[in-house]
């Protein structure tokens, strides 16, 4: 969720009301944003520099950090939040944005050259005329672009915004894609002229900009925007030129958004122009720009047309579960910045909703329904539901069987604990070294999945056995009184070409004990319902040769001819810390580890202890079942099969 930092006093001035922190938190809670932190500019700097917390001055400006939903781009700056809350509090009418009515001839033009299609094919533009910035609104304008770049623009890969002082430029503009060596300009915050390829090299050491270089770096041509006099406006998505930089004194702002995703470019442009049109001479009016592609197709931006959605009243009230009149619904929607009108045709009442350009999050009638619910108050809905009783089909006169594997693993866990073992819960994620080398195994690439982007070596793969987690637990608990008797039951991940995802997770049991657990294996087999060994129809032990165990002191557990587990004395080379444990404690002489593999869990139901419940109903039970079903609101839905 994005977080927006706003000055508290500026925010309250914009809201036309002062709140206590508690009151403001409550307002946020009801509207669906969250006051995440209360701090000051100086405190933020102190934190960044890791300085000791000092007593803040009384006069420091208080900053509210507000968390907003990730799909509400209109709330990414103070102006947007303030407007949404003013409308929510009935303090403002929903603003009606419009495109200035100017003739096509006098419209500013942007010509798009065909070469751009290979690197960044789209551009959308608009002009904010007669704007008046003060320090607060200017900073907010810059911050909003930053937030949009971070969020919907996916760090400028999808969309990049350039804003320019129109009075320093001469239209028409051209959007081109040229070899880097042909582009020369003075970039923002620099005084010297750079060639584009040199500039990219220069920015490799720039903490903020180096993250964006990869977007165009390997392309033979870079996107660039020029004015009539070949003055560079910007080298998107990297940097604007110093020449057209906006200042506090800028009166007319030219905005261009270049993009690889046209839908998002339009949303970004709309968000910037609608939010800041309130500072224009003609409030809520935006001057359009014509974008002309080389094939002659031409488009006018911004597209501020509202999108109309017809939503039936019964859908809204039915989904929320509270009876509401059409008029109430339209009033509630107005509080959420959605124009709504009732239209009646026959018996059914329909709400016509106009979705403004600021509300790109509204995709489906369910989004409208949610806004009604928020404006009505989630907690009011809950109170009504609790009071009248919620309507969900409750009990059933059928047995609910647990997932067999889950129940089996639970039973094994109980039996292990009854044998005096302590359950541990180790991580699925581990390093390749712990999974293989530590256990004397080589990674031949055929068992473990590989994680592409681990943050640390602890997350290189998903375990293929439980043994390393068990042994590491022992290593961390050397001081624990002996014997240490622990076990784990859980899933491992193995490569498996027969699955659509190329991997499977079977269920394993592993345990560790400083005394022989041969008897434990027998006990577990016994509770599973298998007769003792030496019977080839069930299970038996035979010598094995696994590198994690000492030669001659290990066995495979074989069930119906298939190996389902191993047990043995852990090889002294397996874990250096284990060896020191052996040396440390004279009482400890041998340790056994055993693991049972999935086939054991998959034993046929005739030997499995998983509940076997007979299905079917007798005629004597029918009246009772019918009664129960009716009680549960299922009249007419049920059929009995003999």
């Amino acid at each position, binding site marked *: 969720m994005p977080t927006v930092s706003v000055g508290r006093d500026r925010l309250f001035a914009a809201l036309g009301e002062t709140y206590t922190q508690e009151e403001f938190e409550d307002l946020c809670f009801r509207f669906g944003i969250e006051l995440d932190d209360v701090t000051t500019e100086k405190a933020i700097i102190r934190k960044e520099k890791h300085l000791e917390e000092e007593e803040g001055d009384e006069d420091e400006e208080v900053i509210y950090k507000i968390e907003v939903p990730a799909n509400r781009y209109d709330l990414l700056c103070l102006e947007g939040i303030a407007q949404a809350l003013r409308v929510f509090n009935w303090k403002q009418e929903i603003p009606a944005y419009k495109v200035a009515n100017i003739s096509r001839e006098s419209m500013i033009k942007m010509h798009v050259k065909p070469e751009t299609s290979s690197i960044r094919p789209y551009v959308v533009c608009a002009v904010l005329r007669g704007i008046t910035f003060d320090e607060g609104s200017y900073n907010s304008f810059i911050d909003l672009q930053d937030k949009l770049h971070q969020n919907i623009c996916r760090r400028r890969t999808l969309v990049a915004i350039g804003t320019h002082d129109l009075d320093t430029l001469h239209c028409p503009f051209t959007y081109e894609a040229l070899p880097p060596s042909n582009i020369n300009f003075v970039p923002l915050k620099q005084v010297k002229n750079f060639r584009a390829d040199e500039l990219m090299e220069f920015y490799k050491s720039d903490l903020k900009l180096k993250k964006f270089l990869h977007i165009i770096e390997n392309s033979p041509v870079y996107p660039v925007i020029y004015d009539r006099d070949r003055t560079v406006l910007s080298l998107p998505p990297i940097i604007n030129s110093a020449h057209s930089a906006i200042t506090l004194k800028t009166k007319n702002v030219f905005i261009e958004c270049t993009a690889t995703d046209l839908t998002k470019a339009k949303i970004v442009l709309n968000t910037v122009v609608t939010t800041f049109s309130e500072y224009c001479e003609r409030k809520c009016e935006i001057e359009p720009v014509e974008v002309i592609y080389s094939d002659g197709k031409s488009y006018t931006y911004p597209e501020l047309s509202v999108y109309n959605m017809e939503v039936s009243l019964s859908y809204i009230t039915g989904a929320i579960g509270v009876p509401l009149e059409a008029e109430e619904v339209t009033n509630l929607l107005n509080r959420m910045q959605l124009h709504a009108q009732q239209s009646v045709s026959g018996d059914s009442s329909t709400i016509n909703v106009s979705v403004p350009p600021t509300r790109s999050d509204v995709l489906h009638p369910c989004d409208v329904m949610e806004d009604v619910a928020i404006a009505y108050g989630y907690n009011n809905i809950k109170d009504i539901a609790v009071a009248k009783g919620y309507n*969900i089909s409750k009990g059933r006169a059928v047995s*609910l069987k647990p997932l067999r594997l889950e129940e089996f693993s639970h039973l094994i866990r109980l039996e292990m604990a009854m044998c005096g073992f302590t359950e541990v819960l180790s991580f699925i994620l581990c390093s390749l070294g712990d999974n293989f080398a530590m256990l004397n195994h080589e990674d031949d690439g055929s068992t473990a999945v590989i994680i592409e982007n681990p943050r640390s070596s602890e997350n290189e793969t998903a375990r293929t056995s439980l043994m390393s987690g068990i042994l590491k637990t022992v290593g961390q608990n050397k001081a624990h009184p002996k014997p240490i008797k622990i076990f784990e039951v859980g899933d491992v991940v193995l490569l498996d070409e027969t699955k659509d995802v190329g991997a499977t997770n079977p269920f394993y049991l592993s345990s560790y004990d400083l005394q022989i657990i041969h008897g434990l294996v027998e006990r577990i087999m016994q509770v599973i319902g298998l007769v003792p060994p030496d019977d080839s129809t069930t299970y038996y032990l035979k010598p094995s040769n696994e590198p994690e165990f000492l030669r001659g002191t290990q066995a495979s557990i074989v069930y119906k001819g298939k190996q389902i587990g191993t047990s043995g004395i852990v090889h002294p080379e397996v874990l250096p810390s284990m060896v020191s444990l052996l040396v440390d404690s004279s009482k400890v002489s041998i340790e056994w580890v055993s693991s049972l593999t999935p086939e054991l869990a998959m034993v046929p139901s005739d030997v499995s202890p998983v509940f076997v419940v007979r299905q079917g109903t007798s005629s004597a039970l029918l009246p009772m079942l019918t009664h129960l079903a009716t009680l549960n609101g299922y009249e007419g839905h049920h059929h009995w099969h003999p």
Partner: protein
Amino acid sequence: MPGTRGPVPVPLQDGTRDVTQQILDRLDSKASFLTSTEFPDIPQNEIKAALDRLASRAMVQYTTQDSERLSLTPEGSTIVNEGSHEYKVWDAVHKAGKLEMKDLLSAVGDSAKVGQGNAMKNKWIKKDGSALVPAVDSVEDATRIQLQQVQDTQALKDPKLQADYKKRKLIVATKVITYTVEKGPKYAKEIPVEVTDLTADMLASGEWKTANFKPYNFKSLGATQNAGALHPLNKVRKEFRDIFFNLGFIEMPTSRYVETGFWNFDSLYVPQQHPARDLQDTFYISDPAVADKPRADPEAEAQMDIMEAGINKLHGTTKPKEPRDYEAYWENIRKVHENGAFGSIGYRYPWSEKECLRLVLRTHTTANTSWVLHRLAQDPRPAKYFSIDRVFRNETVDATHLAEFHQVEGVIAEPNLTLGDGMGFLEYFYAQLGIGNLRFKPAYNPYTEPSMEIFGYHIGLKKWIEIGNSGVFRPEMLEPLGLPKDLRVFGFGLSVERPTMIKYKVDNIRDLVGHKVSLDFIESNAAVRLDKN
């Protein structure tokens, strides 16, 4: 004495010496005595053990006296015998009349260095060029006299001097504990035989009637039990499972840690540019490199068949099902993302099949929920499902977040289900966990609308805490599955870790999950009674 069985006397033998008996004997002739004078050779700890044994039977009473005793170090003893270093220097100089400083070492040995300085300070000797000459004809060796006194009395009155000698390592102090002993109310000349356990022999002989039973020592710990233990997180997990079963929920198969982008994201209407799909948030798999398109999973299907057999019977749907059409579902998902469909304008971006077939470690079990709901679409009816299993996030790890955790997920599908029904249900569900009076905050989640964060007042902690997420699944997620428009599906989720940490008062998640967890912690925690806080 754990393990002692049968009627046994309780002697305290030290070789041939029975200290308890000696104490009893001495009290027979003396009303009161000091152990340091009566038994100077028996170690203090043996005396203490014997006294405690007798005192626990009220046979003696005693009080403890701590005192400090001074004794001489070997160097201190040498001074008492031969005189102090400064005396030895003066003596040598005095005897020689005039002594070259370089010859002093051979004259007095190790005493030269310290002794010369002190003798000069005391004005016993003085320098004459490179030689030393006596300044007085006779001296009083005060150090020797004081140390002599320490040797005689084991004490020294002047505390300043005492500190000085300690610093010079001439004397050491040892703590001496001695006891004043007198008869207790149950004094006897011998310890009566005490019995710690009732045996079959005693019952047979009738000896139990007269036996002298040893009173319990309530201050000592009992014997450690050879008990196994379940992990606290799994105990809480089991509680959740039971609550779901009692509420009529069916368990979903979730044995798929490795999942496709398709099921984990696209099926849930999470657009392909959504930040959750970034490398910073999700673990991607590089081997295997790519997944196949979704296809039948007969094993999971068979498990669901078993669990749903009863419910299907109730709804009269026992007919064999058609195989699922995964291809049609795939195309529905493409449409709803790329162009919009099912009443939605869609996200309007070029949808990539390749992105769908990337493999991830699942970030939520909702991926599996989609699969189960796709199954439900073959035979739509009211249904309730749950799962509790591990999920993975490539996030920064801190005291409350790990790269993997257990997600609890509940799903309710019901014709014409309302938001209020879902909220009312959650109020009831959380009441089973001891949390009441829920509050819901509007939130954003790509696959639910309305979306709500759940806050609850925790009676134990006495404050509001965020306890889960919930919402109604979006039509863009449900209708591509083939579910009818009026079958609404309410979902909610929370982690097992958070309630477990609150329940067992664990501050750092690494103390709860993983190999660094203390086994003592696992073995000693209480049973789960969630409603007891």
